[in-house]
């Protein structure tokens, strides 16, 4: 298995990207390329589902901050579905839990 698997689908008018695995120095570049590709394809807001992400390091953090910055440039925000505790801890230590647009798991899932 690759350290990180990702896939996207269009749900309502947003692009949801599901991550599965580990987002770190070795997997971030490929995912970033994928993400930038999605941004070029459409103007729809992007939502990253972190629920199946097992690990994230500062490279992953940087990637998400960059994506959020690009979303802001386009007048929106990057949406994130909260990951497991180990992942949320990284956001918390970096002081980002309040600065990024997190939604709790479950809110969007019933739809």
């Amino acid at each position, binding site marked *: 298995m690759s350290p990180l698997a990702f896939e996207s689908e269009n749900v309502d008018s947003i692009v949801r990207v599901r991550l599965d695995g580990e987002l770190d120095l070795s997997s971030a570049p*490929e995912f970033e*390329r994928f993400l930038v590709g999605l941004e070029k394809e459409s103007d729809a807001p992007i939502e990253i589902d972190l629920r199946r992400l097992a*690990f994230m390091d*500062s490279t992953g*953090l*940087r990637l998400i901050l*960059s994506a959020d910055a690009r979303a802001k440039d386009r007048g929106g925000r990057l949406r994130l579905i909260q990951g497991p505790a180990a992942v949320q801890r*990284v956001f918390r230590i970096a002081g980002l839990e309040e600065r990024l647009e997190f939604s709790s798991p479950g809110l969007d899932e019933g739809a």
Partner: protein
Amino acid sequence: MTSPDGDAARYEALYRRLDAVTDSALMLLSVDEMFEEILGRMRTVMGAASATVLLLDEAQGVLLPRTSSELAAERDAAIAIPIGRGVAGRVAESGKSEIVPDLRAEPASVNPTSDGRLRSLAVTPLVSGGAVIGVLLVGAEEPNGFGDADLQLAKVVADRLTAALERTMLFEREHMQRVRAERALARTRTLQGIAEQLGSARTEEEVHQALLAAAADSVGAVAGVVALQDGQSLRIVAALGYAKDPLTGWESFPVETAIPLAEAFRTGSPVWGRSRAELLARYPIVADDPTQNPNEAFVAVPMLAGTSAAGALALRFREVRAFDEDELELIVAIARQSAIALERAHLLRTEDEASARARRLLESNVIGSIVEGPDDGILEANDAFLEMVGYSRQELEAGKLRWRAMTPAEQQHLSDAAFEELLATGRAAPFEKDYIHKDGYRVPVLLGLALLQSQPLRAIGFVLDLSERRAAEQERERLLELERRARTAAEHARERAESATARLQVLSEAGPKLSSSLDVGEIAAQLAGVAVAGLADYAIVWLLGTDGRVQRTTAAHRDSTLRDMVERMAASGRPDVNDDGNLVAQALRSGRTIVASSIDATITDQVASEPEQRRIMDRLGHRSAMFVPLTHRGKAIGVLGLVRSDRAAVFDDADRDLAEQLAGRAAQALENARLYAERAIVADTLQRSLLPPTLPDVRGVELSARYRPSGDGTQVGGDFYDVFPIGNDDWGIALGDVCGKGAPAAAVMALSRYTIRTAALSETRPSAILATLNEALLRHEADDRFCTAVFARLHSTAAGQRLTVACGGHPLPLLVSADGSVSNLGKPGTLLGTFPDPELTDVFADLDPGDAVIFFTDGLTDERSAGREFGDERLGEIVLGAAGRTADEIADRLLDAVLGFRAGEPRDDIAILVVRVEP
């Protein structure tokens, strides 16, 4: 925005991992094991659903799945893909790699992966010597699963698989050759042993018994019989391993009997079977075999003398077994030899009975007989004799047959001696001589004489034509000679195979040895060591420095007690690279191997530049030498010198090939080591310039720091720490982590460290100092890198120690109280370099004697091993035991714990800084 740097880094990492995999896998001698290993890892690395190798079967013109990482069922289904058909067939035909974005768009795919599960493929040919030998096929379950980079990676793997395959095939071929040579040798030995035994057997019974024993012994049979033709029957003349009684009733049987022995005799070909069940099925009559021996496999061969069979030999085996061609040939050869021996025994028997049968034979024509008179006249002769020597009865009657004239000059004395014996005793014992045929050639005969009357002399002679026996003996000699030659050839073949195997062994052992180190000195020592293990009596490696002169020498001797002497010689004078007469210099400058097949005084002069060297060389002994340049990308970086002392053989072409291959591998390893050392030196220098060389002395406080960059030390890490004075009683303590590695991270790190130092001069609050750093990072537009950092101000007076801490997106420091309690110090804040308004809060704590504060980066807590994180909890457990220990002890315990948690190098940089108030 794509990140080509990131791509490069990722693929560099992939190649490194593949390197490690293929290097270790290449040592596996089984092609299948090796393929499975490499394909499995490749699938993991590429994130593919399957990876399969199909090899070309040239005879059938199809591709056959050889190894698959997953598709065992497909492999076992023995699918054959014709060249040109399907994706794999197309690639095999064109020799060009391709990506199939969607398999469903492929017409009539006949790939082994056509079960519909795979949607896209990356396919690349395995090319050896310009010809396609197979296809590597990587599959994904989704469409568009692969890009150009993946194809590139597949090509690299395909090249390595091909190289490994070539190597392994070579090994297998060598191995088969050796097995064949050994079998041939064993067979020759058996035949020779049998020839000796049969040669000493004088009677037919002895021949039969010797034959049986030898045949049974050579193939491990437990019982056997020999039968000879007797009219329309076969008569058993010898048996082995049977009780005598049970053979009763089988002493003689018609040649038409349906048993293996008779069938082998009738057909002139071997007959065999694996088991008793098979025997009974094919020869039901055997069920009546009264012996009922517990036998299984059986074999029967004809005893061929010329083209017709004189009899047959049958063997029985206790176990169920098959017979290979070699064994059958051996048994046939044994039987053939015994037929020759039988003939000889038959002749000998005839000879022994000759005189007793003389009178009877006189009247018959079976044997030539003559009556000799005085002088040398032959008075009478029967037709057999006349035919033997080519004369007619008319010529006999005309008195033309004179035995002296018919006897070769050098044999006259034999005849004279026989006549003396005849006159003295009345008979002459049979002796061998030649008659000269009327046509001039010699006829070998055995001649016995008996006196009929002495006055006038009348003697009768019995003449046995030995031509056939001579021919048989010559045939036996010829066979023996053939066998001697075969044996010599087999021994040569074995020697060749053994030396080829030894060479492969040297090379395959050298690979991992040479690549096991990134230290130039160690590699040179390994090279010298491998060279004396496989090639030479002693070896010297000369390596050039950056100035192009010999900078380093390493030596080894097969006899380790002489190693010092060789080293002394090597060290006593370095060859001058500009001396045209020096062989080392010649090898360096020409880039070619110089072989000195005999070393005389001139050569010694060309190698030994100092009298001391020559003295040692003379003591070590030298017969031939070879100087092989170590060349990387056309540039000579050193020379491998090999010397064989006078006991050993001169270096030949095979030695030279081996030495050059060894030198090639060593040069590659040395170049890697040099690059590695260069990178490591640069990284180390940079890192040192970014971290404080020593921590300052702070009154009443112990300070201890530990730093471990991740990976192999060739890249600057992103973690930093600093402790510096601010005024008289205050100290600044900083620790941070810049996202990423390498030069860009180092630049941000330097910026952070100096910004903090500068800000601390004007700001007192840690939060303000971090805010200044945040602004500086935001202004540093070249990079969107952020940084997490903790800054603490230590106010240290005789009255006590107060620590004020602010944290910017960084793990909070741990406060370990003297009483053993552990708590976080500070309040979480926002990482720096991203937002204009970071949350940064100052929190202070008064430290009591024995209290320790641990600052660390997330490399400590994020360290992972097999999916588990070292984590905050483990950290907590370790620091619980930290109370009462010194700052150094605490730092060591933490580092040891995390390094022990995961074998090998840490994945992320680790920085630890411990501040402890003296108790």
